[in-house]
């Protein structure tokens, strides 16, 4: 791969992602103040000691934002990885085994997808206790339905290929067929989908936190910071917009990278790649 072949838009995406991940990993080192430390008056304007001002309790907004990057990215990533493992395993099993297993899994998936994700999450979260691992699990299970759909569609195309049949005839087990024959051949669409699902997970987590059902205070996360500072909007204080911009920025960066990846793979195949 040549560095020069990467278009400008993809560079913007890569740099943005790098900054966000850097903030997430080294949050305690680069944040000027503590996550829960009250350092000044409430809603101080930008500039001076506090680069982005302070929030509704007088905490440094920049520090909250950096710690928020850690929480948001970690939770979204965990949910996406989990949803992918689940979705890919089940969808490949459905595609390889076929028959009633396939029918059963696909119909259950259809049922899950017939309820909007946010509504489903609201119903489920109304019952379950508010804990972080439960939140990640709920996000992962709901999201895995989308992965299942794509995974099954892609895997069904591959399972009918000669090399899979050859593997079957030589007596390879189901696990071998899934991991050694199908997975390598479906990796590029799944990788692009992973990026999209991650961007969606960030948005979804932020939405849940904004509604007060995601990550609970005083832990900082981007959606939660918006919720904390939303009352300031009426007084013309833009503190709630800054984490909102961070969420949007991260999602845009992921989309830019995914767009480039998709274009690259579709031009490799030499089709009418318009999708």
């Amino acid at each position, binding site marked *: 791969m040549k560095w020069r072949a990467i278009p400008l838009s993809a560079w913007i995406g890569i740099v943005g992602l790098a900054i966000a991940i850097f903030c997430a990993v080294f949050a305690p080192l680069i944040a000027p103040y503590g996550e829960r430390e009250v350092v000044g008056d409430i809603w101080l304007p930008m500039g001076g000691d506090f680069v982005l001002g302070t929030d509704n309790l007088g905490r440094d907004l920049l520090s909250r934002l950096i710690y928020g990057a850690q929480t948001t990215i970690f939770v979204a990533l965990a949910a996406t990885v989990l949803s992918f493992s689940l979705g890919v395993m089940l969808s490949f099993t459905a595609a390889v085994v076929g028959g009633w297993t396939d029918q059963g899994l696909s119909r259950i998936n259809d049922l899950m997808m017939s309820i909007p994700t946010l509504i489903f999450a609201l119903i489920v979260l*109304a019952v379950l206790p508010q804990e972080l691992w439960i939140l990640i699990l709920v996000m992962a299970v709901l999201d895995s339905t989308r992965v299942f759909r794509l995974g099954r569609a892609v895997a069904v195309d591959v399972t009918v290929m000669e090399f899979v049949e050859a593997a079957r005839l030589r007596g390879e087990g189901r696990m071998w067929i899934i991991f050694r024959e199908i997975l390598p051949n479906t990796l590029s669409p799944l990788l692009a*989908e992973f990026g999209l699902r991650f961007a969606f997970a960030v948005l979804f987590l932020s939405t849940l936190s*904004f509604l007060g059902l995601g990550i609970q205070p005083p832990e900082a996360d981007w959606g939660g910071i918006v919720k904390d500072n939303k009352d300031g909007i009426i007084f013309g204080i833009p503190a709630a917009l800054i984490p909102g911009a961070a969420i949007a920025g991260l999602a845009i960066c992921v989309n830019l990278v995914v767009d480039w990846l998709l274009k690259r793979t579709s031009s490799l195949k030499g089709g009418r790649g318009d999708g």
Partner: protein
Amino acid sequence: MVQESGPAGTGRAPQGSLAAGLSGPSPANDSGAPSGRGGGLAALRRRMPLATLLAQRLGLSLLLLWAVSVVVFLGIEALPGDFAQTYLGQSATPQAVANIRAELGLDQPALSRYLEWLGGVAQGDFGKSWASGNSVTEQIGLRLGNTLFLAFWAALVSVPLAVGLGMLAVHFRDRWPDRLINVVSLGAISLPEFFVGYILILFVAVQGGWVTFPSTVYAGMSFGQRLEAIILPCATLVLVVLAHMMRMTRAAIISVMSSPYIETAELKGLDTLRIIARHAAPNAVAPIITVVALNLAYLVVGVVVVEVVFVYPGMGQYMVDAVTVRDMPVVQACGLIFASVYILLNMTADILGILTNPRLRHPR
């Protein structure tokens, strides 16, 4: 298939699955089709292909609605976590928990409560709210209209705009208007609803002072006043849905325009207008309608967040409030209604898709 899995392709997936569900060998799908009369279903399918397809699709939706009601009620029961316990908090005494359970009827077996609930729902009775003791149906009656009012106006603005912009993008394909629309819409897809909402509030309502915030509507407001109140939430919804809808419209038209028979028409020397009107349009209508209906379904969900942002008294706000205090009858009622609207819109999309697809009108 692989190439369609791009950002624009993801939203179109549900149609494919439902089509797969129709052609698949699942006996339950046929429940809605009138059978009997001579050769049975196969003969009927040969004689009236369209009607059979539609009946199947209707039956599937009814089945789905019922299944959703099971999930919303019994599925929730199966989850770990006791309503009464979470309702009272960790420090509640066992006696208090037992009292609450008896008071809410939770000591009855789940199946009989489900049947009772379903019977009530069928008659339009969603039970009583645990938090306030008020009738849920009454509250929903007040709020559903508000939500539909908001969604209706958002749809009325966004659908023509999205289809128009999508066509514009195809017309100027790969030139600067298309690129501009592409970049802007890619950005817009990534914006969370509340971010768009608060930007509008800050710049239009607070600093501009052109409209009022919060967007409360109440009984006794005139039609004009109501319209004025929903300008900002409506604009937010339009912005959120527009980009998605437009990208999908563009992809749908391009996929039709790049098919071989259009190329043939071009090579034959037909003029562009004739190609679009006679050859492309009949096949592009179905995907565009699907796109529109799917996004209307999305609108119904987007409404939840937008209502919270703008403190608009609708169903979304009601549901979120109920979730925070774990008021299950309200959550279940709202969940069921939102899911039903979503399913109905998806069904409408499929049915319109079947009706407008010239290939399905004639049996093979």
